[in-house]
């Protein structure tokens, strides 16, 4: 099949044209272009001179490269993660699989459409990248071409990942959650063993190094002149290794998806449900579940909001047995981190341990919050349940409070999982008790913000897929975007601007409170709380008005 016939692929044409028609895609592309060009303009030299060894250009080049990389991470997986599962639910996948078009053509069409969209996304920032080149100090062969190849590798890898998860998922929100969860693992957790365990040897060292090639961070650091930072924490891989890993993992994801993408994938009976009576439950089952999802439920008591109970019962992930497992996992990790620090296994201070815990908690919030919150209203409207609730005497306020509580309490339980770690930390170093309290307040504000903002997005979305993708984008812009500005502190952003941007991010307030590396100079408490609470209040007002509008007679 030559390149021309590839472009004639009907799936590719439909997917690409369909997405390019969407105003949201054009807004995302325009935003990337504006942000990258603004970053360059801010640092453009006043004097018309070119400096061949300029450090200024690399300092502009770095945030631009990271900004585009984050945009690719945020936007590229969203569409493929919903591509197969949503077509299966709508019934259009079975039509395609029953046509003479072979599955691999369908797959290639979906993959290439998404990759081309990502290429379009980062190509609009090329003028900004070449402007850095014009400033001197970076080269086409040494910096620009490797950067474009890294972006291309990321586009292929994340598109293939999204399609693979989508082919295995039963619901859109589960697919998005798993995709972003695995992405987080690929980008951040893959460098964890090298960073956390320090100097390893033999096979363990080789495996840890191999894992770092899954993350684009070392590759980006290498070509943006920050390789020293990677090497200081023991990472020895670069962009070539990352590209090889991208090719291997893309091929692996593609083969796994094609294996699944057969007409037989629809050949499964509907789960009718099996009820376990309390007396029938074995000890093993009771131990593994703690709260058995198949046990017969009693009626909703009068003192509980029925909408909240319904939300807990209807989502697969939000059910109690999953939460308890996650809380147990979170508690173990947080205690381990503290014990490791206390016993001197790694040379970390309490501040660094606390920073790791804050990052882990924010990771949990950002991974789970948008998919829980974004489904609150959009999926109800989509399923027809909203119409039924409107026809009942329940008040709009009770609907809203039940829905918000179901997400807020879930996220709160996750935060509580790390409390044992903080308690141990306060025991080891009693002087930081006040700081720990402030961190917890910041995290509570972050939880409220994630809940309210994703519910707001949900209230204005027509489908749960769009709501979930938009919620991830909004929250990542708020949490990761402000950290990107922090990354460019000194150059091109001044300290006042960075501090103001960080006030929007409650995670940054928590990190600054614990004097995490890089945050020591910022004083974000209590102004960060006021800003966070103001965002929550504004979001809540918007949400109340929207719910009133959605529930009142037409």
């Amino acid at each position, binding site marked *: 099949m030559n390149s021309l016939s590839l472009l004639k692929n009907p799936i590719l044409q439909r997917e690409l044209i369909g997405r390019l028609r969407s105003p949201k895609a054009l807004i995302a592309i325009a935003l990337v272009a504006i942000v990258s060009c603004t970053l360059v303009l801010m640092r453009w030299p006043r004097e018309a001179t070119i400096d061949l060894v300029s450090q200024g250009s690399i300092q502009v080049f770095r945030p631009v490269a990271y900004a585009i990389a984050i945009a690719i991470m945020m936007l590229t997986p969203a569409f493929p993660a919903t591509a197969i599962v949503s077509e299966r639910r709508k019934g259009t996948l079975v039509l395609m699989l029953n046509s003479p078009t072979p599955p691999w053509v369908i797959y290639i069409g979906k993959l290439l459409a998404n990759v081309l969209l990502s290429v379009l996304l980062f190509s609009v920032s090329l003028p900004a990248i070449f402007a850095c080149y014009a400033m001197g100090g970076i080269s086409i062969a040494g910096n620009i071409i490797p950067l474009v190849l890294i972006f291309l590798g990321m586009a292929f890898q994340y598109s293939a990942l999204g399609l693979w998860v989508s082919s295995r998922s039963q619901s859109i929100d589960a697919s998005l959650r798993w995709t972003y969860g695995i992405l987080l693992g690929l980008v951040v957790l893959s460098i964890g063993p090298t960073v956390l365990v320090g100097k390893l040897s033999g096979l363990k060292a080789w495996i840890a190094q191999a894992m770092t090639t899954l993350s684009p961070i070392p590759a980006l650091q290498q070509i943006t002149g920050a390789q020293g930072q990677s090497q200081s924490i023991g990472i020895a891989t670069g962009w070539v290794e990352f590209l090889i890993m991208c090719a291997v993992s893309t091929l692996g994801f593609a083969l796994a998806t094609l294996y699944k993408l057969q007409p037989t994938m629809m050949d499964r009976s509907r789960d009718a*449900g099996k*009820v376990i009576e309390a007396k029938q439950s074995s000890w093993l089952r009771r131990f593994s579940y703690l709260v058995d999802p198949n046990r*017969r*439920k009693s009626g909703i008591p009068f003192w509980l909001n*029925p909408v909240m109970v319904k939300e807990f019962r209807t989502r697969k992930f939000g*059910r109690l047995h999953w939460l308890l497992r996650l809380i147990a996992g979170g508690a173990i990790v947080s205690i381990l981190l503290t014990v490791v620090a206390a016993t001197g296994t790694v040379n970390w201070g309490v501040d660094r341990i606390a920073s790791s815990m804050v990052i882990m908690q924010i990771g949990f919030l950002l991974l789970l919050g948008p998919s829980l919150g974004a489904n609150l209203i959009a999926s109800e409207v989509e399923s027809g349940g909203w*119409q039924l609730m409107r026809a*009942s005497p329940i008040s709009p306020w009770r609907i809203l409070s039940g829905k918000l509580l179901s997400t807020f309490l879930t996220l709160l339980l996750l935060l509580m999982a790390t409390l044992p770690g903080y308690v141990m930390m306060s025991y080891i170093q009693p002087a930081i008790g006040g700081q720990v309290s402030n961190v917890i307040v910041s995290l509570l504000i972050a939880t409220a913000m994630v809940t309210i903002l994703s519910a707001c997005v949900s209230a204005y979305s027509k489908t749960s897929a769009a709501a979930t993708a938009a919620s991830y984008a909004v929250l990542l812009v708020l949490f990761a975007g402000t950290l990107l500005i922090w990354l460019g502190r000194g150059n091109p952003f001044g300290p006042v601007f960075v501090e103001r941007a960080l006030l929007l991010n409650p995670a940054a307030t928590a990190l600054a409170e614990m004097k995490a590396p890089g945050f020591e100079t910022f004083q974000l408490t209590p102004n960060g709380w006021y800003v966070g609470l103001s965002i929550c209040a504004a979001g809540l007002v918007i949400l109340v008005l929207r719910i009133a509008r959605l529930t009142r007679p*037409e």
Partner: protein
Amino acid sequence: MSDTVVETTNLTKSYGDFTALSDLSIHVNRGQILGFIGPNGAGKTTTIKILVGLSKPTSGSATIAGVDCSQNASKIKRLVGYMPDKFGSYDNMRVHEYLDFFGAIFGIPASQRKARIQEVMETTSTTYMQDRYVESLSHGMQQRVGIARTLLHDPEVLILDEPANGLDPKARIEMRQLLLQLAARGKTLIVTSHILPELARICNVVAIVTAGKLRAFGTVDEVMSSLCPQRSYEIQLASASHIAQAEKVLGQLLLDSEPLTSSPAELTLRFPTVRTEPELAELLNQLVAAKLPVTQFRELTSDLEDAFLSVAGKD
């Protein structure tokens, strides 16, 4: 005291320049089943939404048990059980939990809810599926659960949008029996359906709307006689060779307003007429006198579908 439960008076709903419903006036008595008929976009759903308090009329009024639907929407929601055409399924929820949730949002106390759920499940014959996930149910099962849901708060009026849509013949019969059973218990039902013979079998009154206007309203017989005043007659002969001769004889006897159509393959001739029985007997005598071998002379029964088509065809 009037036994009217549902009443609309000059009900009108406009969206900008578009009038979705114009001057609709109908009334339904306690224990009656109203068949609400109309093509897509005729204004049926608009009327239903006003009746259940989800939409406000531009002018006119609608009352249920004397309560104004737009002024007192919260009271209306307790008086009406509404089943939209979309089921409203939730993932990972069993039938029992599903009914428990709707019972709770209708404010049924927890102490009474369990017994009430059992009662509505028995009424709708859904007890055996109480532990099944709602999304795993077939369409017919979901429709039954949908009716169980509308019965939970024991409403006076049930408004069912296309309850027989997509059901197989057996499920349709069961649904018909269930609706008749509910009417016998004193519930007032408003049912929309595209399957008009179904409605004709269960409805006491029918209302036909097209383009937002009420075209006919009354009992099935009243609607039939107002919309189909002409009766159709069919004459069957013993052989096709006599069709031409019969056409010639009838051509001399029938008026221009009684167009004759023939079907040699079926050995029949048909014509609409408003003649009385003695006039028809005379017509038959003329055919026999012409030595035509008449094997059958009978009236063709008109149904609700003919009545609906006679109205829909005018738009």
